[in-house]
């Protein structure tokens, strides 16, 4: 916990200063989670504000302060899901085109005008974003929480309020779909590599 239980209780009682402190304590962590869940840095702050807005109006429904972090995660997941559903976009880049894009990036890197490390990060972001677009927004969020955020099944059980086995099944299916898309993209890259030789 990043804050004391007393502070949460005070915020629940309508103390604006206590609520401010809670937001300040969890702001950075929430921004990070949202950034990884939605993959669009330009929208992260708006979604984070929506999360804290929902927190403000639902804090009185929280029974025990011990469950605060799972509660906040749930609000984050819901806000991220709403955002993804609203802005569900067709990825501008297709898996098959990745090799071409990678080559363009490699050229850019060779020109030494762009930092290689930054280029690699951008490539990773775009690849994962593309792979995650092969599953539904719900599965994207679940998979990101498990694989990227590192939440355990117990944590996910608290966040979703769902049975561990049901979550396992859903995670397995989502991962298989992503893996299939990854396999396809790898094959596409290899083919493109052979073709260009």
């Amino acid at each position, binding site marked *: 916990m990043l804050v004391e239980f007393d502070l949460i209780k005070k915020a629940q009682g309508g103390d604006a200063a206590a609520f401010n402190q809670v*937001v300040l304590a969890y702001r950075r962590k929430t921004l990070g989670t949202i950034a990884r869940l939605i993959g669009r840095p330009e929208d992260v702050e708006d979604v984070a504000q929506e999360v804290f807005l929902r927190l403000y109006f639902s804090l009185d429904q929280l029974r025990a302060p011990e469950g605060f972090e799972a509660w906040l995660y749930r609000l984050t997941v819901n806000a991220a899901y709403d955002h993804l559903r609203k802005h569900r976009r067709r990825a501008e880049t297709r898996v098959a085109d990745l090799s071409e894009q990678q080559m363009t990036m490699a050229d850019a890197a060779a020109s030494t005008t762009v930092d290689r490390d930054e280029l690699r990060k951008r490539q990773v972001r775009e690849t994962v974003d593309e792979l995650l677009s092969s599953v539904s927004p719900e599965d994207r969020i679940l998979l990101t929480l498990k694989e990227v955020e590192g939440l355990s099944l117990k944590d996910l059980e608290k966040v979703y309020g769902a049975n561990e086995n049901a979550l396992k099944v859903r995670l397995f299916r989502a991962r298989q779909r992503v893996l299939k898309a990854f396999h396809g993209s790898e094959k596409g890259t290899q083919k493109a590599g052979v073709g260009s030789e």
Partner: protein
Amino acid sequence: MLYENFSDNEQRLDQLFAEYRDACIVPEPGAGFMPALWQKIEARQSTSWFFRKVSGWFVAASAAATAVLALALLMGPSPANPIYAETYVDALAADHASDYSLYTEPVHVDRVADFSAGGILE
């Protein structure tokens, strides 16, 4: 071969996810984060206050209308000849009687031409 590829890809996918965590751009919270948040909270509070107020007016108005109608029913003159004074049995009997009164038999009428043709007039 395919399974080998898949298990190889499993590991690479795990690695990719791990890299993704570090590669994601986490924007620094801007100076306007908290003021904007409080503005949104206040805006939503005022909206919900308005709806609460309007719904309160509707509840009060409907309660007043109910009270007025209840008073009008209680204090108004009772009808001298109530419409539904008869019993169920009376209503059934009346209905039965009207059935009988409406019962008609077909009337047999001979044509005038037949009379003349049959020689009755002759």
